C-alpha cells in the first residue's frame, strides 16, 4: 500500500522539521522524499493542504480497562478513542486484572491490541509481583516478552529497600522504571489538594508534601542506582523544581504531567464536581502555572492523557466516594494545542511533548517521521475547534470536565503502520 500525503505542514520535532511538504508511505513505513521520485504511484492520496502532519501521538499513560474491567471499557472502544484523538501508541499500566507481571499477560495484551487494528499497545510490566511491593517480577523475561519499561503504578512500594533493589535489577536489563510519586501515608484517604478548597468543602486532603516527599525518595534512589527513571505525573510546583535540580545534577530522570493538570486547578471542583476528582489531585493555580513553566523550560518532558474511562455511575456519588480519573484520550491533542494558543509552548515543542519525547522515554522508534520509521501519523486541522460532547466521545467513558468546552484542533486522519485507522470523513 502506497500513500501520498500531499501539501501539509509537516512538523516532526524529533528531526527538527517544520515545513510544508509531501509525505510518502510505502509498505507501512515512511519513505524519504528523494526515494519517492516521480515514479511513486500512490494507491491513496490524502490532501493535507492547510493541515498539520505530525507523528502520531504517544500516550505514556492510558487505562484501557481490559482485562478486568470490561464493564467500564474495552480495548476495542478505547483504542478507537485513541486513533480518533490522533494517538497511535498507548502505554498501558500493569494494574489490569490480572496484573501484567508475567510474559503471558504481556503477550495477551499485545496480541489483543494488534487484533483490534487501531492504535499500538505497549504494556508496561509490573515492578513487583501482583504490584504488592514485595517480590520482584522476572524482569528480564518481561523485557524479552516486549516490555521496555516497568512500573508499580500507584501501588506504592513502602519498603524503600525493595524499591532500591527493583531499580537496580531493572537497570541491569536496561529497563526504564516508571514511578508515581505519592506518599501513601500522607495521601491517606485524601481526594483533593490540601488547600482552600479542601477546607471550604470539608473534603479529606492530600498535601503537596505527599508528592514531594515521595519524589525526594525516588530521586535519591535513582541517583544511587543509576536507574533510568520516568516520573509519571507531577502535580505541584515544588516537584518541578526538584526535577529541575535532579536533571541539572545529571540524573537520568524524565518527567511527565497529565493534560488536565495544565488547564485545571482545585477551584474547578466548584461545588463537588466529581468530574474533577483525579489523583494526583488538581492543585492550586500556582502549581498549574509552575507545571506549564516546567514544560516550557524543558524540565517536564511529556504530556500524557492519564486516560481513565468510567461508567456513568462511578461519578454519581459523594465526591470522596466517586472514582477518580478523566477520560482523556480524545482531548490530549487539543489540550496540548491549547497550550500553544495560550503562548506556553511553540507548536513544535508542544508536539514534541506528545510524540518524540514519550517515544524516546519508551525507547521505541516511533513518534517521528524520519525515513524508514513506521508510518504512524496524525493529520489535524489546527485552525478549527470542536465542542467536546462527553456523551459522543468514542471512549466508553464520558467522564470529562471539559464537556461542552470548545477546544482547538480537529483530527482529520490517523494512520498506524501506514494504514488509515481513523478518518473524520
Amino acid at each position, binding site marked *: 500500500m502506497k500513500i501520498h500525503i500531499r501539501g501539509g505542514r509537516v512538523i516532526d520535532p524529533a528531526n527538527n522539521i517544520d515545513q510544508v511538504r509531501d509525505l510518502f508511505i510505502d509498505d507501512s513505513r515512511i519513505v524519504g522524499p528523494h526515494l519517492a521520485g516521480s515514479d511513486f504511484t500512490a494507491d491513496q492520496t490524502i490532501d493535507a493542504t492547510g493541515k498539520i502532519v505530525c507523528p502520531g501521538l504517544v500516550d505514556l499513560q492510558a487505562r484501557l480497562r481490559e482485562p478486568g474491567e470490561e464493564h467500564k471499557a474495552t480495548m476495542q472502544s478505547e483504542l478507537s478513542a485513541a486513533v480518533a484523538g490522533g494517538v497511535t501508541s498507548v502505554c498501558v499500566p500493569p494494574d489490569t486484572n490480572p496484573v501484567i507481571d508475567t510474559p503471558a499477560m504481556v503477550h495477551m495484551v499485545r496480541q489483543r491490541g494488534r487484533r483490534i487494528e487501531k492504535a499500538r499497545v505497549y504494556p508496561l510490566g509490573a515492578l513487583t509481583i501482583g504490584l504488592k511491593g514485595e517480590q520482584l517480577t522476572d524482569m528480564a523475561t518481561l523485557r524479552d516478552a516486549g516490555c521496555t519499561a516497568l512500573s508499580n503504578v500507584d501501588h506504592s512500594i513502602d519498603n524503600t529497600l525493595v524499591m532500591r533493589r527493583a531499580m537496580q535489577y531493572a537497570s541491569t536489563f536496561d529497563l526504564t522504571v516508571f514511578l508515581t510519586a505519592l506518599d501513601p501515608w500522607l495521601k491517606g484517604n485524601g481526594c483533593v489538594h490540601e488547600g482552600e478548597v479542601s477546607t471550604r468543602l470539608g473534603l479529606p486532603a492530600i498535601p503537596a508534601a505527599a508528592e514531594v516527599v515521595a519524589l525526594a525518595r525516588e530521586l535519591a534512589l535513582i541517583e544511587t542506582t543509576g536507574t533510568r527513571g520516568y516520573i509519571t505525573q507531577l502535580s505541584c510546583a515544588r516537584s518541578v523544581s526538584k526535577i529541575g535540580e535532579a536533571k541539572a545534577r545529571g540524573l537520568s530522570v524524565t518527567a511527565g504531567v497529565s493534560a488536565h493538570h495544565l488547564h485545571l486547578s482545585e477551584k474547578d471542583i466548584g*461545588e463537588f464536581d466529581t468530574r474533577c476528582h483525579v489523583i494526583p489531585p488538581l492543585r492550586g493555580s500556582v502549581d498549574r502555572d509552575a507545571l506549564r513553566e516546567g514544560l516550557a523550560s524543558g524540565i517536564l518532558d511529556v504530556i500524557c492523557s492519564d486516560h481513565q474511562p468510567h461508567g456513568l455511575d462511578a461519578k*454519581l456519588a459523594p465526591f470522596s466516594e466517586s472514582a477518580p480519573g478523566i477520560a482523556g484520550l480524545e482531548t490530549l491533542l487539543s489540550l496540548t494545542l491549547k497550550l500553544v494558543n495560550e503562548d506556553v509552548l511553540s507548536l513544535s515543542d508542544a508536539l514534541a511533548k506528545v510524540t518524540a519525547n514519550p517515544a524516546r522515554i519508551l525507547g521505541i522508534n516511533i513518534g517521528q517521521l524520519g525515513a524508514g520509521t513506521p508510518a504512524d501519523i496524525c493529520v489535524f486541522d489546527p485552525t478549527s475547534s470542536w465542542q467536546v460532547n462527553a456523551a459522543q466521545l468514542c471512549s466508553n467513558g464520558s467522564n470529562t470536565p471539559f464537556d461542552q468546552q470548545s477546544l482547538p484542533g480537529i483530527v482529520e486522519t490517523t494512520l498506524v503502520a501506514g494504514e488509515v485507522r481513523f478518518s473524520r470523513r
Partner: protein
Amino acid sequence: MDDTGCLTHFLTIEGLSREQLIGILDTAKKFVPSSGDSPNKSSALLAGHTVVNLFFEDSTRTRTTFEIAGKRLGAEVISLNTARLSTHKGESVLDTVRTLEAMDTNIFVVRDSASGTAHLIAKHVPADVHIINAGDGRHAHPTQAMLDMFTIREHKGDISKLRFAIIGDILHSRVARSQIHALNTLGAKEVRVIAPATLLPTEIESLGVSALTDLDTGLENIDVVMMLRLQLERMEGQLIPSTQEYFRCYGMTMERLNRAAPEAVVMHPGPMNRGLEIASDVADSERSLILSQVTNGIAVRMAIMAQLVQGGLKGGRQ
C-alpha cells in the same frame, strides 16, 4: 435557587445573603411557642406534604428535632436511619432517593458521613423536591449554625457587636464551617478558631477567621464561646495524644471561661463529652446555652422547611 430567586434547597450557609439569614431567624421567632401556648400546637403550613428524614449517618437530636418540626407544621414525617454501604456495594445514594421520590416525598432531610451528599442529591431531584442538608461529612451543617445564630440573638442580641471563638476539632467539623459562614455573613466583629495545629485545616483563614493555638490568650474579649464535640474515634492517637492532655490544654473550665469577656456564654452542638472538651460545671452553669440550643432547633428547622415550601428564601445563589 429557581428562576424567581427563591431557594429550593438548604444545603449550605455559604453564599446566602444576610437578608436571607435574618429572614429565617425572624420567621423562626414566630414558631417559638409563647408561654401559655401548648408546644404541640400545630400549624398547617405543611399539611399534605411528606418529609423524609434520610439519615445515612446516625443522629438522635438532629433527627428528632426535624421530626418534631415537620409534625408541628402538619407534614407527614418518616425517618429512615439507613446505614449506607459505600460505592459499588448495595444501593447507591441516588437509587435510595429515587425510590423514595417515587412515593411523592416533598422534602428530604439528608445526613451523611461524606461531604457533598446533599449537593449530589439536590442535583438529581425534580424541581419541586426540596433538600435540607442535616450534615454532610466535614462540609456543612447549616441548620445547626442557624439555630446557634438564633440562640445567640436571643441571649446576646446583635451578632455584629460580638466576638466569637470556636474551639476544638475544626478539621473534621461541619458545624464549625457553617458557623463561620453564618457569623461572617451576619457581620460578627471577630471570629477566632482555636485548636492544636493537628486539628486546624490549612488555609482556614481564607474563610475569614483568625486561627490560634493557645486557648488562654485566645479567649480574651470573647463574648460567645462555641465548643465543638471531639470525636475520639477520629483522633487515631495522633491528632491529640490523650484525652487528659486535651482537656488540660483545650478543655473549657470555669477558670478559663473567666478569661473571656464578662458574661460570656458557652455553646455546644451536642452531644457533649463532659470532662473532655467541657467541664460539667461549665456545661450546667447559667452561662451555658446548650439546652436552649436544642429547644430552638425545632423553631429554626420549622422556619427553614416552611420557607422552602412557600418559596420564601429570596435572593442568594443556590
